[in-house]
């Protein structure tokens, strides 16, 4: 066995110059495939579709440049583990993609072991559960884990929004449990007590009983852990209908079109988000914002910027590998990314990766809903 291996390596080395010449003459015809495994239908479907717009824009730009072709293969996970596994198997085994853009905690947790096994690299800009820390050497998050964002928003709520009594509404899920735990820890570190903790099912539509229980404790603010825009919008709307006029706290997933659909009721909601300024002067951001606005006649949001960045990052790593004449496999991608890209400056700002546990640090802001739009109100770091 060893001998054959050694021989094939030698053969491979000697054949390399010919092979590369062949590859160069093929030119544009080298097509890189990347998987996009996200909810495209269901309660998170609208958000997933939005994210696809960001990624698709990057694919179109790169293909227009002509130096290489990228083919994006989208599969619908519906944010469910089962569909995620089926979709991942198809991407990895039928389409043979080395790299998949994915998201949502349940899906990532389910496919991470498969990714480790099949050496397919996963990047996510839409999973926030700290339970995903070190879930796989083939998983890297580009979205801050929520225990870190909780450490930013709770002190802000206590000091700037004068929140003394906090109610906690957790979704029964990995993410909900992890978030609930970090909120309780952080809030007691601030020397405060939770007034109540209530939970709800991910398919629930009637939150009135849970909200009645929370409102009975007269909280100043309610932290809602749901990552599903439709659910969060329902929670806020039903609480307002029950006469609650206080604050809602949340995190990045709150920036969802469903929230804006409930109009004025969504005001007095505050959440953290990575810094993304459509008016930023740096060239990457400006180019992206212009191109997106041209294509869709509306400005992009943070999620579209993130998913645009993911494809550009993929393309940059792939370009490096092509220069080094290395084949684009999940393994090579991982080596190249972790050795050459400790940080990445994209349209949505700077990503500082921690490859040891798959986490990322980004500069963070507090945003709120004002006059039917998501607006930034403060920097957090």
């Amino acid at each position, binding site marked *: 066995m060893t001998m054959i291996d050694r021989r094939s390596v030698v053969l491979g080395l000697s054949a390399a110059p010919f092979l590369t010449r062949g590859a160069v003459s093929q030119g544009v015809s080298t097509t890189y495939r990347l998987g996009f495994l996200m909810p495209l239908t269901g*309660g998170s479907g609208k958000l997933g579709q939005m994210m696809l717009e960001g990624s698709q824009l990057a694919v179109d730009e790169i293909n227009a440049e002509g130096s290489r072709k990228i083919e994006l293969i989208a599969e619908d996970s519906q944010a469910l583990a089962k569909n995620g596994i089926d979709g991942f198997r198809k991407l990895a085994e039928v389409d043979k993609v080395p790299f998949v853009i994915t998201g949502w905690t349940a899906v990532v947790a389910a496919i991470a072991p498969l990714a480790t096994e099949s050496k397919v690299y996963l990047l996510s800009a839409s999973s926030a559960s700290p339970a995903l820390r070190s879930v796989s050497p083939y998983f890297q998050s580009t979205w801050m884990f929520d225990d870190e964002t909780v450490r930013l928003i709770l002190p802000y709520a206590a000091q700037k929004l004068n929140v003394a009594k906090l109610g906690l509404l957790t979704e*029964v899920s990995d993410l909900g449990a992890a978030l609930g735990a970090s909120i309780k820890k952080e809030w007691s570190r601030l020397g405060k007590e939770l007034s109540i903790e209530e939970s709800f099912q991910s398919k629930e*539509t*009637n*939150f009135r*009983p849970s909200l009645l229980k929370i409102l009975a*404790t007269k909280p100043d603010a309610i932290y809602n852990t749901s990552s599903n825009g439709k659910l969060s919008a*329902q929670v806020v709307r039903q609480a307002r209908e*029950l006469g609650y006029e206080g604050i809602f706290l949340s995190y990045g997933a709150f920036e969802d079109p469903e929230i804006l659909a409930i109009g004025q009721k969504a005001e007095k909601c505050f959440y953290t988000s990575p810094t993304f300024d459509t008016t930023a002067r740096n060239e990457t951001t400006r180019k992206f914002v212009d191109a997106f606005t041209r294509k869709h006649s509306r400005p992009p949001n943070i999620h579209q910027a993130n998913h645009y960045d993911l494809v550009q990052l993929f393309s940059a790593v792939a370009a490096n590998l092509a220069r080094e004449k290395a084949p684009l496999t999940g393994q090579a991608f991982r080596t190249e990314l972790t050795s050459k890209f400790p940080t990445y400056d994209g349209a949505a700002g700077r990503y500082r990766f921690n490859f040891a546990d798959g986490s990322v640090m980004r500069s963070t802001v507090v945003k709120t809903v004002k006059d039917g739009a998501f607006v930034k109100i403060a920097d957090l770091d």
Partner: protein
Amino acid sequence: MTSSMLLLNLIVDGVTLGCIYSLIAIGFSLLWWIAGIVHIAHGATMLAGGFALFAALEMGGAGLSVALLAGLLGAVALGVIVEIFMYRPLLNRGTDEMGILTASLGALIFFEYAITIAFGPEGATLDAGGLRTPVIQGLPLVFDRFSALIVCVTLLTFLALWFLLAKTQIGREMRAIASNLDLAEVLGINIRLVQVYAAAIAAALCLPPAAFLLFNTGLVPSEALHVVLVASVVAILGGRGSLLGALVAGLLIGVAESAMTWRFAAGWRQLITFSLLYVLLLVRPQGLFGERV
């Protein structure tokens, strides 16, 4: 707010929820009583009514009364179509109860996903706006005008239905068919026609609960099966042939589901509904007010 005040609020909220359950159950029950059809597709007629209302209001820009009429037409049209083109031919072929039930389930799934394709899986929600102000200002009791409306409409609907069944010719014919099919035939009642009326009335009864859901928690296509299941539990719990039973059973389940969150996590609510059903069928299969199985 004290703990007992919270319980009171939960019960009040449970009553409005229970009213919606009763309304859905009564439409479902009508075909069950009269034609022996387990009308699973009732969930689809409710979706049809709700989404016709939504489409007229939001997309067509119609006023509320026109939109309600559109919803009524949507529900009745689908109910009658299912009766004439599915139940009728199946009954004519002598298809048994389970066969009709399976076809009805198929029809529910078909229309549910047809609506999903047309309106998207997220469903529709509308805002009750000004109706969400409390009936009596300044009380810690959460009882708004929308909830009051639900309770009033439910009571009126049940009264009207009672009047229809007890005092009108068509109602008497329906009851005759329900209690003894052969005798009704001998008496010269046009059974086919009466069943079409029953299907139309059952479908029309979908409109109030569909509208209430639309303005309350939202109308989601994938909820259709679950809604019918709750309706069937209410129908069985209430007992075959009993209007009062359906009303009481709906309220009972609504209040039980809501009140249990006083001490338990909300996620366990459905456990109440279905455990109640299980125990009941073991000990009293004819239901609370029913006379026979």
